[in-house]
């Protein structure tokens, strides 16, 4: 547990992907089995999550700490697990923390009722940094920025093998991945992926720098809608079925209806969407917010599945049976996909249509008008491109329609959490409604991103200096600060006071130069729906 806690601390403070990758590589090289495998599973969220929740942490605190002191401390620190780890009264010379493997095994074998007792024993035996690692592990809130992709890259560095090979061997094993590490260190055979559902690193698109990148002749390109859903890889065969996210996270449990429809032996690439209830598989998808509600449930109930049925729009085929189609050109794979679909007709799936494009003018019109529900732009794929993992340049382009923007007024701010705990970083902004003496600001959305660190510092200072009221953790600020908010689309909403919901709003510019009275009106936003 000690080495794992140290790794977590270093990952928290590591400045970027490369640094995290180096830390992981070193950890794999210096930590024995099965701890390193358990760590790997925990970092990418493969272990049982949320064995303990906030309520259990609070109860543990109450068992050892004066409630007034705990409340004051939590208010100051801003993170429940961190507060408990720091405030836990240390036993003299307590320095015999459990091993990570022991923690994972005993958590799996311990009932919820017995958990507080077990946790108490461990906390008593551990110094503060280990207590924090332990609590983060047990609450499932590691949040150290390690994706499956990053872990794969680190395993590739550690073993000297290609990421592609790692991905296949990885999914042929299960936590704590003993066979995987044995193979990576040259001590064992490559874990046999035959028949097992294996994640293949997907091919990703780059943002189109400009139409000229496509060249004069558009006949070498194929166009599709860019669906506003979640990229998934469907893998099914005799060895099982899995739905993987773009980074290799296993989404199978969250979309049982898709899993059920995967009556085939193939690896397909597509977009996960939510459709209106009862709609055919090729119907126009519901707004992204609907999919988000599904993603929020790891195991959705029947009612939710009925109200928000999932579907997949297919656009590529990587394997058919055991045959690897990835070296084939896009056009050939597309023909195989169409043929596959025509013979199999898997339920809840439809082909992502190819859009005919003849000239640049027509293409530009298409990209500009791509504002249908569930569409966020165009995909342009080179007809001759093989399926290459990663983001190869010049093969696939995404042409996102331009973001919409409004100038809005800051209204409320709230502290962030975790690394942003010391900053006011969650902002509610509003637009003007009404005329004359009735003119007032209506909140239309919240943004947490888009700004630089330097801009965040400015916003934070503004909130501290110009707060006019306090509602628990929320500060109301003087309505004088205009920010430019970009968003991908606006949708009608009955859940918002303004009647409109913004998709992915972010603060892209601070407009200190602009008087608040000149910010945009709600009417101008409604016109963008």
């Amino acid at each position, binding site marked *: 547990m000690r080495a794992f806690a140290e790794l977590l*601390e270093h990952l928290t*403070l590591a400045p970027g992907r490369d640094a995290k990758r180096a830390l992981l590589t070193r950890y794999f090289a210096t930590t024995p089995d099965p701890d390193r495998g358990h760590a790997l599973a925990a970092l990418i969220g493969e272990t049982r999550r949320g064995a303990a929740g906030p309520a259990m942490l609070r109860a543990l605190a109450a068992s050892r700490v004066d409630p007034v*002191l705990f409340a004051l401390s939590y208010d*100051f*620190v801003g*993170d429940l697990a961190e507060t408990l780890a*720091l405030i836990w009264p240390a036993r003299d010379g307590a320095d015999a923390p459990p091993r990570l493997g022991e923690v994972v095994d005993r958590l799996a074998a311990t009932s919820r009722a017995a958990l507080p007792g077990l946790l108490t024993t461990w906390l008593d035996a551990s110094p*503060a940094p280990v207590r924090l690692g332990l609590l983060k592990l047990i609450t499932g809130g590691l949040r150290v920025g390690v994706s499956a992709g990053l872990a794969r890259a680190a395993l590739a560095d550690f073993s000297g093998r290609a990421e592609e090979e790692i991905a296949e061997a990885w999914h042929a094993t299960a936590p704590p991945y003993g066979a995987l590490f044995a193979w990576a260190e040259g001590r064992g055979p490559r874990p046999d992926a035959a028949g097992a559902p294996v994640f293949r690193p997907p091919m990703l698109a780059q943002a189109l720098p400009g139409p000229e990148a496509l060249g004069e002749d558009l006949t070498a390109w194929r166009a599709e809608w860019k669906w506003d859903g979640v990229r998934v890889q469907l893998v099914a065969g005799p060895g099982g079925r899995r739905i993987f996210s773009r980074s290799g996270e296993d989404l199978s449990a969250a979309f049982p209806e898709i899993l059920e429809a995967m009556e085939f032996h193939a690896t397909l690439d597509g977009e996960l969407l939510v459709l209106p209830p009862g709609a055919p598989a090729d119907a126009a998808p519901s707004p992204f917010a609907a999919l988000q509600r599904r993603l929020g449930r790891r195991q959705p109930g029947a009612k939710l599945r009925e109200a928000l049925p999932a579907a997949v729009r297919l656009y590529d085929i990587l394997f058919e049976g055991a045959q690897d189609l990835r070296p084939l050109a896009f056009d050939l794979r597309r023909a195989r996909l169409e043929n596959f679909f025509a013979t199999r007709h898997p339920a809840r799936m439809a082909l992502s249509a190819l859009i005919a494009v003849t000239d640049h003018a027509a293409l530009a019109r298409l990209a500009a008008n791509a504002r249908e529900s569930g569409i966020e732009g165009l995909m342009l794929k080179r007809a001759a491109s093989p399926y290459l993992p990663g983001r190869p340049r010049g093969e696939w382009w995404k042409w996102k329609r331009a973001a919409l923007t409004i100038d809005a007024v800051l209204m409320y701010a709230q502290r962030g959490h975790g*690394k942003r705990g010391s900053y006011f970083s969650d902002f509610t902004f509003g637009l003007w409604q009404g005329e004359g003496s009735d003119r007032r600001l209506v909140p239309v959305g919240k943004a947490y991103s888009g700004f630089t660190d330097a801009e965040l510092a400015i916003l934070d200072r503004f909130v501290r200096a110009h707060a006019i009221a306090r509602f628990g953790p929320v500060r109301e600020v003087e309505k004088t600060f205009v920010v430019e908010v970009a968003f991908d689309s606006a949708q009608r909403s009955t859940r918002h006071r303004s009647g409109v919901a913004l998709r992915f709003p972010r603060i892209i510019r601070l407009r200190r130069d602009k008087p608040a009275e000149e910010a945009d009106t709600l009417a101008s936003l409604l016109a963008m729906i």
Partner: protein
Amino acid sequence: MPTACDWLIPRPEGLYCVPGDFHIDPRRAVARAVITHAHSDHARPGHGAVLATRETLALMAARLGQGAVAAGSQALAYDEALRVGAVDLSLAPAGHVLGSAQVVLVHRGERAVISGDYKRSADPTCPAFAPMACDLFVTEATFALPVFHHPAPGGEIARLLDSLRLFPERAHLLGAYALGKCQRMIALLRQAGYDRPIYLHGAALAMCAVYRALGVDLGDLRALPAGRAVAAGELVIAPPAALADRWSRRLADPLPAMASGWMALRQHARARGVELALVVSDHADWDGLLRSIAETGARAVRITHGPPEALMHVLAAQGLDAAPLEGGGFAARREEEE
């Protein structure tokens, strides 16, 4: 029960001792000031006369200019008695930085101790905090929450040395307050056997020169050479503000580190952008505060320089008269000063 030591009055410009006619650590220029230590939130320029330890006077002169303390200033050694008006005054070690002192005042049989900033953990650069029995104790409260348990400094120094060994191709840029923390870190490193030259930012170098003149040996210290210095594998110490400054671009792939009590909190370490967070503080932690207060035997405690609520809660439960030192107006958190 009458208020303890009602001859000490918090005023807008600072704590005022009526029978001695002087202020302690005033925020504004006054006629006569007793200064606990040379940090800028305690030692301001422009007083008519200053009473402090010899070391504090020297550090003030180096920071604020000779004119700041020249006329009418008076040095007082620890435990040396002095009668000021109707008050008996002496200074006792506070263990915070070189020259830091608690001010002990006795008037009509009542004893008050104004601690200034203090700590209880080891510091080779200054004498240790001496608990002084008193009726009224004025305590700092920088880390007055039970989440703060500063680890032994030796362990944190070992982590720094480990990192230097692990990343020999990177310069380690350690953020540490120029007066006190910087010299303490150097002295702790020297104790741990680190005898390489240590490179310093100009502000830190100036303070080290004063320490040296006052007899504190810090080994081989160097200014960072001008131009593009490489300093791979070397240790460079600079004030925290210089960490993200253009100044640091002279270093080879610097690994930003910070020595501060605030580093115990991850969000602070992250907000500072440090990769190595060392929890080394020149302030008492929660247990240190409670232990020190108990050792004075004071029945009244006044709290300043930090959040008072947690201490008030605990001390009130012990039957003590605990309250914020009124007219405070000190910044609640002083991360730069730490």
